[in-house]
């Protein structure tokens, strides 16, 4: 078991900066999720922790030891890949056994450890099969078993669920979280899926363009976003971001007028989540653009000026399009961002 420290990590590919000056402390036994759109540097960061890529600058410390100069094979780190990366010529049994053989673990221990790992992911009866004879979900579980079997200090998971269908993803998510809690191994998990991030993580690191945007628990990330990127990335549907101006304690934009704190002044962006918008009232005056019932909730899109605002309405809400409508924003959950997209916080 180990903590991980990244100190001022920079990764450059020629002129392109993959990761810029990243510092991060990952606690022992923590489940940390790196979240961001593709190309944001999250996979590069993980590959540097694994030792598959070298940082251009900065230090990586695992379990108190600087590992920059240590080859991937000698770091006590297990990785699960997006494409499973099972060895096609070996049976599942041999696949799971491979890291044990490579690490010189006594052969007498192999069988018991392989069966324990396989049982953990419910693959006990598939050990004789070749990877080609398994379904996607089974292959991913085999890859998990291969990572688990040698009890590494750190698990790294690179979008392990992105090749699976939605239903399987949900059940695998629970399985991964359960396993991580059971084994108490420090885990770094890369994904671009915010639901995975929210459900799995102890803490989420949101990245964009090679830089950390915000680090926090899922609750903090959701309810206290640091900038418009984080606000717009988390939540489904994401937060409404409305550009307008604030003066003398009031924010206005076409069709919208809400009270705002005195310290918010000038050109600003108002952020309000769909669930903090309620049908009725007059903070927003617009027309119904579309209604999407999903069963447990109805998504309502309202046109205010040229801006479309998402509202989570009651499950039985129905309306024709173009009907005039008023919306109230929950005053306790309004977020204001400056022109650079950074959150404006009160000085008080």
């Amino acid at each position, binding site marked *: 078991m180990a903590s991980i420290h990244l100190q001022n990590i920079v990764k450059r590919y020629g002129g392109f900066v993959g990761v810029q000056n990243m510092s991060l402390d990952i606690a022992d036994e923590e489940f940390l999720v790196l979240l961001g759109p593709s190309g944001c540097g999250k996979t590069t960061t993980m*590959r540097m922790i*694994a*030792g*598959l890529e070298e940082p251009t600058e900065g230090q990586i410390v695992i379990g108190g030891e600087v590992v920059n100069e240590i*080859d*991937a*094979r*000698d*770091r006590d*780190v*297990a*990785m699960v*890949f*997006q*494409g499973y*990366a*099972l*060895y*096609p*010529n*070996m049976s599942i049994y041999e696949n799971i056994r*491979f*890291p044990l053989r*490579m*690490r010189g673990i006594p052969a007498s221990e192999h069988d018991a450890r392989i069966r324990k790992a396989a049982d953990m992911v419910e693959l006990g009866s598939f050990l004789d099969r070749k990877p080609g004879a398994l379904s996607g979900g089974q292959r991913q579980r085999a890859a998990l078993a*291969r990572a688990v079997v040698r009890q590494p200090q750190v698990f*790294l998971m690179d979008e392990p669920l992105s090749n699976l269908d939605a239903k399987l993803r949900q059940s695998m998510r629970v399985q991964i979280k359960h396993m991580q809690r059971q084994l108490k191994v420090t885990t770094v998990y890369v994904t671009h899926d915010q639901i995975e991030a929210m459900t799995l993580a102890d803490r989420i690191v949101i990245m964009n363009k090679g830089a950390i945007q915000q680090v926090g628990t899922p609750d903090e990330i959701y309810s206290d976003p640091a900038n418009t990127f984080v606000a717009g990335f988390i939540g489904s549907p994401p937060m409404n971001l409305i550009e307008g101006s604030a003066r003398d304690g009031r924010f206005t934009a076409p069709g919208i007028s809400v009270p705002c704190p005195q310290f918010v002044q000038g050109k600003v962006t108002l952020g309000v989540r769909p669930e903090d918008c309620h049908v009725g009232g007059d903070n927003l005056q617009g027309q119904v653009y579309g209604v999407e019932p999903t069963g447990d909730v109805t998504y309502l899109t309202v046109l205010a000026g040229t801006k479309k605002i998402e509202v989570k309405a009651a499950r039985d809400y129905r309306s024709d399009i173009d009907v005039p409508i008023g919306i109230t924003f929950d005053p306790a959950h309004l977020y204001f961002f400056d022109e650079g997209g950074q959150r404006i916080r009160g000085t008080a």
Partner: protein
Amino acid sequence: MATARKSRGESLLLRYLVLGGWALVCLLPILWFLSIGFRPRTEVITPQPIYWPTFSLDAWHLLVSDWPIAQYLRNSVIAVVGSVIIDLILAIPAAYALSRYEFKGREDIGFYILSTRMMAPAIVAVPIFFLFKTMGLLDSVWALMLIYAAINLSLVTWIIRSYMLDIPKELEDAARTDGAGDLTILREIIVPACLPGIITAAVIAAIFAINEFLFTLLIASTSNAYTMSVALANFTGGSDGIIYNAIALVSFIAFVPILILVILIQKHLSRGLTMGAVKG
């Protein structure tokens, strides 16, 4: 509906007729020398057409008694198998380096290796003759083995490299984080994963080696080193003039091993021959 089905059946029949006809044209020479090989000598040289040939094993008996066919076959097998083994030992690591390691001039080296194939063999015939003469390796099977290996090395490297390029990089990353070093990765992951490619390359190299003529003619001067291809060319049938039915039979015997090899790798052959066409 019925008309559609009928015309479909007709087009299928037409397809079989055309392809069958073409196959017959291709196979005709082989059928022809097979038919000559099993006819009596007199029937072969008669100017009148013979529509119902007589079956005869004369040529076979002549071969077995007069011609060291076993020796030639043995020479062929030793030279070919040996050369393929040398090729694989050298080509597999080379292909791995060319497909995986990033180094300056990688593409140039890859192209240089392939370009050795583009030269007319006759250009190096004389230097090679003197080289082997100096080494005292003329008229020896070992010399043929080395020459075949050298001729086919570029092709074998290139075919295996194209298969290795198709192996996902993730597999190696996984093996590396599992604790494997470069050689272990090559031995336990890469080679088994591109085994079809390695077999294809080996068979193609074997076919080229079996058919090699120019250098074999240059190096081999007696039955010490004669392989089937050269023995065949020197074979006239014996002391009583050209014996066509025996020549035909020998040709057929020389053809059989290649036929077997091709049938074995039929599935992979087209892939091997278009190697690097998609990923270069």
